[in-house]
């Protein structure tokens, strides 16, 4: 197969990074990204993009750790280069604070982020309602800049991008050899995955440029993530809610919770409310499949279900998905040479 034609469905951080990885591991592939939404209208655009992993209950920890490590290493190199500001990648330090001391020991990612250590008593004085905390330095991907940078890198490889709502993967079988499903929440309809469910997240994006640290409550519900131009204040985790409409009562509640962590936010300006549906799943689906219909086969690689942790593991899962695409190509080449016999 001289130039395998690969379609990537989805243009959020997963679709774009997977497409990019495919162009890197398979330079002879022709890659096309198809999505009904592109930045700034994807779920990824709502997310703060901070690299603090979400733990998937059913994915082995060593695999999650590997994904996070690859993502962190990849972004770390970009943050330290001249491209950092265009790519929207920057280091940020801060604190994760707990109202009650967590039972489990160190998080699996504590040796991947920088300078991880327990907070001192003096540091905890800033958080009178919290009894324990961890300080560390991690990375943040600002969006839309990071997504636009991925798009730019993709275009430079010759990859194509089209706005198109794919209702059924079989739509693509005549034009493409392999389909990569990075449809996020859209995978529920696209492949009928009932294990996938939305977790609604509402955030505020505000102007508060004096906030230089992230602050996250260990319960994961309240967080402050400073980006390049805006600070993301969150949030909510509403399982099963499909509503994309901002709720003003929720906005008020988020603001109040964040102000109690960081009182100076009272002076925040230009408050913008955004909503995204995290594509949640007990484990991220990074998997090869061959669909079959009336004697026709369609190789599919799935890469979706990253829930609250998409940015933290995106490059790792993209690498794995690209590797699976490579396997699909080998299988196709194997079967086509068999067909020639």
């Amino acid at each position, binding site marked *: 197969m001289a130039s395998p034609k690969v379609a990537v469905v989805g243009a959020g951080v997963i679709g774009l990074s997977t497409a990019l990885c495919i162009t890197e591991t398979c330079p002879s592939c022709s890659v096309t990204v198809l999505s009904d939404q592109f930045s700034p209208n994807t779920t990824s655009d709502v997310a703060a993009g901070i690299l603090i992993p979400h733990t998937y209950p059913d994915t082995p920890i060593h695999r999650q750790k590997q994904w996070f490590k690859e993502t962190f290493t990849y972004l770390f190199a970009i943050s*330290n280069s*001249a491209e950092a500001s265009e790519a929207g990648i920057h280091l940020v330090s801060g604190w994760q604070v707990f109202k009650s001391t967590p039972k489990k020991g160190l998080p699996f990612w504590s040796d991947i982020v920088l*300078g991880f250590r327990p907070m*001192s008593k003096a*540091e905890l004085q800033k958080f009178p309602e919290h009894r324990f905390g961890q300080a560390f330095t991690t990375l943040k991907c600002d969006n839309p800049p990071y997504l636009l940078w991925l798009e730019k890198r993709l275009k430079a490889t010759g990859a194509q991008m089209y706005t198109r709502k794919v209702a059924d993967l079989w739509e693509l079988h005549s034009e493409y050899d392999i389909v990569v499903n990075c449809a996020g929440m859209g995978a529920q309809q696209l492949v009928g995955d009932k294990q996938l469910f939305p977790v609604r997240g509402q955030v505020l994006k505000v102007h508060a*440029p*004096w906030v*230089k*640290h992230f602050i996250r409550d260990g319960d994961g519900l309240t967080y402050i993530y400073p980006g390049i131009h805006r600070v993301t204040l969150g949030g909510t985790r509403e399982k099963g809610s499909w509503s994309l409409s901002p709720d003003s009562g929720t906005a008020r509640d988020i603001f109040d919770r964040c102000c109690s962590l960081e009182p*100076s936010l009272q002076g925040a300006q230009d408050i913008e409310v955004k909503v995204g549906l995290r594509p949640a799943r007990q484990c991220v689906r990074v998997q090869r499949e061959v669909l079959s219909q009336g004697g026709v086969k369609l190789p599919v690689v799935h890469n979706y279900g990253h829930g609250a942790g998409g940015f933290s593991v995106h490059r790792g899962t993209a690498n794995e998905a690209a590797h699976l695409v490579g396997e699909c190509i080998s299988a196709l080449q194997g079967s086509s040479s068999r067909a020639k016999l």
Partner: protein
Amino acid sequence: MRVAVIGAGVIGLSSALCIHEQFHDLVPSLELEVYADRFTPHTTSDGAAGLWQPYLSDHGNLQETLWNKETFDYLLGHLHSPAAKEMGLFLISGYNLFTEPVPDPSWKNIVLGFRNLTPKELKLFPGYSYGWFNTALMLEGRIYLPWLTNRLTQRGVKFFHKKVESFQEVSGDGVDVVLNCSGVRAGHLQPDPELQPGRGQVIKVLAPWVKHFIITHDLKSRIYNSPYVIPGSEFTVLGGIYQHGNWSEENSAKDHKSIWDSCCQLLPALQKAKIVEEWSGLRPARPSVHLERESIRLGNLQAEVIHNYGHGGFGITIHWGCAMAAARLFGSILQEKKRLASPPGPRL
């Protein structure tokens, strides 16, 4: 009781505020006047990035370490107040980088979360093999000085735009105390060979992705003669110039290139930063801060002068401790003049 304050940088304004806050109720006749040839945004304090960080070594000057601590604790106490934003006050973390191991600084327990850098962190800074990470405070001069000015104006303190040439000029006419906060030009009022300009130059850029301060150190050279990057609330300050004895306030192209090249090497991401402004200023350098009382004979009058100048590159870092010390000196002057101790009662 009239008090003339000479100088409207961070030292002059904060000393004035400290004295007024402490003594206005006790001395209802207290009148403060601030005289300066330069006001914000044209003072030395306005050009400083505003990072709270003393020099690496206190040279055994425990008093200055205590003033630094007093300032840090005072500011930390205001961090959660509604005034913090209007003061230009916020927390900031960052890196101090060295090419060899160094002893911990006198201020390691004053700042928050002080620790050594890990090997992975040092990978960020090729050429540096040792360093510290800590959380400190930013107090931006160009925001703090207007805030101080507003507080003083609200209290009825008067401001006079005037180049004061001598203590005599302000001390006649019923002025009881002169607060000499004249910074680098204090030598014009009274010779002080120990006071020298420590010329600095900075480039202000737009680089809002930089969230940490980075201060490098070249132990063979003086402090601040090695690149540093300090992000403010709006601009990021790039610097690394300290020229002892240089009185020039003109921006130097050579210094610009040195700052730009060395900071971009330190943080490659800065290459894309937009340059907004260039500024030169003169740090009022002195082996130690001149903070003491002096009685000066001017003609047949005796004036009490409180000197408070010579804070080098750590004026913002030490300002409140010094203001409190100046206020204590003022208090002792009041006691001597029996202003504090006079009991209320009928006048004869």
